[in-house]
């Protein structure tokens, strides 16, 4: 395994399976009375979040604390960033205090990569702009594997705002590495430019017709419509988006019985996913959150527990 986790491309199939297997053991800790392992005692991990986040930040924090690491949270608001300090100065300042690792979320694609070149500490990418969000892809794979078994040969649909989705990019790499078949579905305005060449080289298919895709998949992942990243008109009205590409109550009925529903959250209920679908028995939304802690414990373990941090 590489020293940092910046992209899903940093992990090969064996690495992914090792992380998922370890996460299963970590999951047991969540049900214990004493949720504490001494493994990372004496390590300090800094959560550096320049974008808003509930589940990623808190699950990294819980994961670190359950492994006995010291976890410190720094967010852009209330730090020297708001006084105009550059990213480079901020991370080098914090690194100079002797921390072992950074978990970074930033609105600029490639921020985590940049930081890994500036500091000696281990860097984990917790979402960089429109680029990647590797631990999200790992926890998605973990949740689907818990319910469906080995992902080899399964058919997964990724639906929604593909243009603005870092979850999409990480998931495409992860699912391909694990041998799943992927179809991406979005309205033409939310398909990333040049998706055809991308699809051809990575071996996934694209579709504009959600109704045709839904009945033949084993898992459907609804991606959030990221209105905060939209400046132009990507679709006329929210209602029109829902009619064309939302997982509505009617579409829920067209799914096969075993098909699972994922959503990385936060959900826009009533826009890309109806409440019926989000709360259905087939929905993995809360399993994903619970898996998030286990998977992040596993990632922290593999990146921080070993000799000199890493092998």
């Amino acid at each position: 395994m590489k020293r940092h986790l910046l992209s899903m491309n940093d992990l090969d199939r064996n690495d992914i399976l090792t992380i998922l297997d370890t996460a299963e053991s970590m999951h047991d800790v969540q049900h214990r009375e004493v949720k504490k392992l001494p493994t990372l005692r004496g390590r300090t991990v800094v959560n550096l979040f320049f974008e808003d986040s509930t589940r990623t930040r808190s699950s990294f924090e819980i994961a670190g604390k359950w492994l006995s690491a010291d976890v410190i949270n720094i967010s852009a608001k209330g730090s020297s960033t708001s006084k105009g300090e550059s990213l480079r100065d901020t991370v080098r300042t914090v690194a100079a205090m002797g921390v072992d690792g950074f978990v970074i979320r930033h609105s600029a694609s490639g921020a985590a990569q940049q930081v890994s070149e500036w500091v000696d500490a281990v860097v984990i990418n917790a979402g960089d702009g429109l680029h990647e969000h590797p631990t999200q892809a790992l926890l998605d794979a973990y949740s689907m594997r818990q319910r469906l078994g080995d992902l080899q040969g399964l058919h997964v649909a990724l639906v929604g705002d593909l243009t603005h989705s870092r979850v999409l990019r990480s998931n495409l790499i992860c699912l391909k590495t694990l041998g799943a078949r992927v179809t991406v579905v979005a309205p033409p305005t939310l398909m990333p430019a040049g998706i055809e060449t991308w699809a051809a080289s990575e071996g996934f298919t694209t579709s504009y017709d959600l109704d045709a895709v839904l009945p033949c998949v084993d898992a459907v992942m609804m991606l959030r419509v990221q209105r905060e990243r939209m400046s132009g008109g990507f679709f006329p009205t929210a209602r029109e988006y829902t009619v064309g590409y939302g997982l509505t109550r009617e579409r829920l009925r067209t799914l096969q019985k075993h098909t699972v529903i994922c959503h990385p959250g936060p959900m826009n209920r009533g826009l890309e996913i109806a409440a019926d679908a989000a709360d259905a028995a087939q929905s993995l939304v809360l399993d994903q959150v619970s898996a998030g802690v286990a998977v992040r414990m596993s990632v922290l373990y593999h990146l921080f527990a070993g000799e000199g941090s890493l092998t």
Partner: protein
Amino acid sequence: MTRPESAPPSDSPPADLPEGDQSVRVVMSSGDVSRALRRVAHEILERNKGSQDLLVLGIPTRGVALAQRLVHVMAEVEGRDVPSGALDITMHRDDLRRNPIRAIEHTYIPAPGIDDKTVVLVDDVLFSGRTVRAAMDAISDLGRPRAIRLAVLVDRGHRDLPIRADYVGKNLPTSRSERVQVCLAEHDGLDEVRISGGDR
């Protein structure tokens, strides 16, 4: 990092040993192993005055197989099942930072948990005592047993910590440089304890 193999297939031949190598000695045969385990099982029952509140936990990998054999014998003697499980201690090791990342084995504790049980830890070889120290830490994270006992197939001495076994299959005086290898049918195709290396 490489993905660790899960337990080797049980039909695999025993680890290759150089033919006629003087430095490898078999110190316990298959019969010796099974007799020792039967005795240990009886001793546990005798000291516990039966099998009530016993929980036998093996430390992966070989300890789990030994724990299962012990409860099998106990069930024969007592006429009722004795619960057994597995306790992975990787996350509690004190040498994690000195070694490459280890894979984590599964921990399995039977349903009622360990509170107020007499937990018998089972391992194949007792050497430095560090594994047992880690196991006791792992247990205290899971609950509060009434007592913790330790059963090992081989005690080879050279403790780093003030720890001793309550039940010992065989005391084996060794030098620090020697290697003790426990083979079990479940993992290695046959039961045997070998000793190799060293400068004798």
